[in-house]
């Protein structure tokens, strides 16, 4: 039979965890930011320094865009591609998008992996490769790179794909855990993973143009505050955190002034 005291002890322990996790309620104005997974480290650091109570929802940009289409209203949407904010803006769901950063796509391998050149990895047949799913920006950039290898090599590489992850952190996790041998991720995610992975840079002729853009979502509680968050990404603490995390400045074609 079940012992009621055990149940009570378990309940008390759970409650203690929940209460300690919640902390005191916060009276600061709240800002909800839906952002691409690859922005996790930089945005979290930026958010901590802001006067607002910033809440993040990190995920695949495509998934976050789909949530906005289904009626979710975060205050800010920051995507790892320029296409999703543009599409949402065209449908009147977000304001004018601003390109705020660039990134590079790299190949990461597990630390124990002997192969360290791109060519070797692409020619081998026994490599477990993990990439982003189609539609997720990192997945689309990866397919761009693979397409540039020519049809024969591209077919070989795609035959090695074992899993298509819904965001870039899924790819990093699989490689860092040693579940997969290699994966295509952003340079910033590779840097954030530290010693858990080894990074192989792509030759310039293969590199896709990776640009991030953000927009204020229609229906934001306080659009001015949301805009201030985006402005800080171009110049100020947000831009500093992005640079620290290894992001590159927005391409010159962006809407940022001063050039």
């Amino acid at each position, binding site marked *: 039979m079940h012992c009621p005291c055990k149940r009570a002890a378990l309940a008390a322990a759970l409650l203690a965890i929940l209460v300690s996790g919640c902390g005191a309620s916060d009276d600061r104005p709240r800002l909800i930011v839906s952002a691409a997974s690859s922005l996790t480290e930089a945005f979290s650091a930026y958010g901590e320094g802001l006067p607002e109570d910033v809440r993040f929802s990190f995920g695949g940009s495509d998934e976050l865009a789909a949530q906005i289409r289904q009626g979710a209203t975060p205050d800010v949407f920051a995507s790892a591609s320029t296409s999703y904010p543009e599409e949402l803006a065209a449908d009147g769901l977000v304001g004018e998008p601003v390109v705020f950063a660039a990134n590079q796509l790299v190949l990461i391998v597990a630390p124990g992996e002997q192969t360290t050149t791109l060519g070797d990895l692409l020619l081998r047949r026994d490599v477990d490769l993990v990439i982003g799913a189609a539609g997720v920006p990192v997945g689309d950039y990866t397919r761009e790179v693979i397409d540039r290898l020519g049809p024969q090599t591209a077919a070989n590489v795609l035959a090695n794909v*074992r*899993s*298509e992850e*819904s965001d870039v952190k899924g790819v990093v996790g699989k490689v860092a855990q040693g*579940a997969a041998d290699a994966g295509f991720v952003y340079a910033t995610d590779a840097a954030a993973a530290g010693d858990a992975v080894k990074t192989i840079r792509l030759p310039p002729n293969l590199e896709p143009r990776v640009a991030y853009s953000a927009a204020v979502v229609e229906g934001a509680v306080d659009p001015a505050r949301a805009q201030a968050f985006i402005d800080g990404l171009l110049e100020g603490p947000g831009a500093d955190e992005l640079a620290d995390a290894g992001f590159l400045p927005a391409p010159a074609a962006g809407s940022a002034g001063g050039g």
Partner: protein
Amino acid sequence: MAGLRLRWFPLVLTGALVLALAFLTVPIAAIFFEAGPRQLIDSLGNEQALDALRLSLLTSSIALALILLIGTPAAYLLATRRFRGRNLVITLIELPLVVPPAVVGIGLLAALGPGGLLGGALGDLGIELVFQTAGVVVALTFVASPFYLRQAQSAFEAIDPSWLGASRTLGASEARTFLRVAIPAAMGGLLSGTALAWGRALGEFGATIVFAGSFQGITQTAPLAILELFSSDFDAALALAAVLVAVSAALLATVKLFAPRTDPRAGETITVA
């Protein structure tokens, strides 16, 4: 009629039930309301959705077979024996019920992944689980088995011990008693445990994506395909969701339909009638 006198407590009970029913059924009903018949039919031509459904049915069936084969005798032991550490064993078996599925996936990687505790030994045997359909089966089996074990244990506990005693007195071995007396007597509970475990296996998401990954036809089960379709093709995601709900409901209904009535009051009704 006595019911003419208004009593507040039955009203509270009714209110609570109506609230619970609405809360639990409206989101499910909304899937069918949003996914029109045309989308449903279109989704039958969507190869990704079909592959995912096929894979979900295959992996959950294998997982259920494993759970029934191992779980039934294990639950019988827990129900019929008293031993030191029994409560601890029961608690450990129930732990997966409250552990988040993504944590299960990480645990499976740490135990059975290529670099995990047992990964090397499995590799020597030529067994690969990560990124393989077999890995999906492992994840489903892990998350679904506690649902069956719990139900099976209480079903066996509910059997009048004198039945089992009588069988033994009549000379039947314990194995024969287990197969011929205990399992038939506990059938209703075993079937409802099967339904719950099957439903949980069909809905599994977190452990699968972390441990086995997501690849069409190999490891992408229906819930994983729904996430991917959610951002690229919302109609297809809705349609696949509707099919998954229908399949799950059909499974549940089938098992409930064939469950013999073990409720004593059901027997009473029959005698009165």
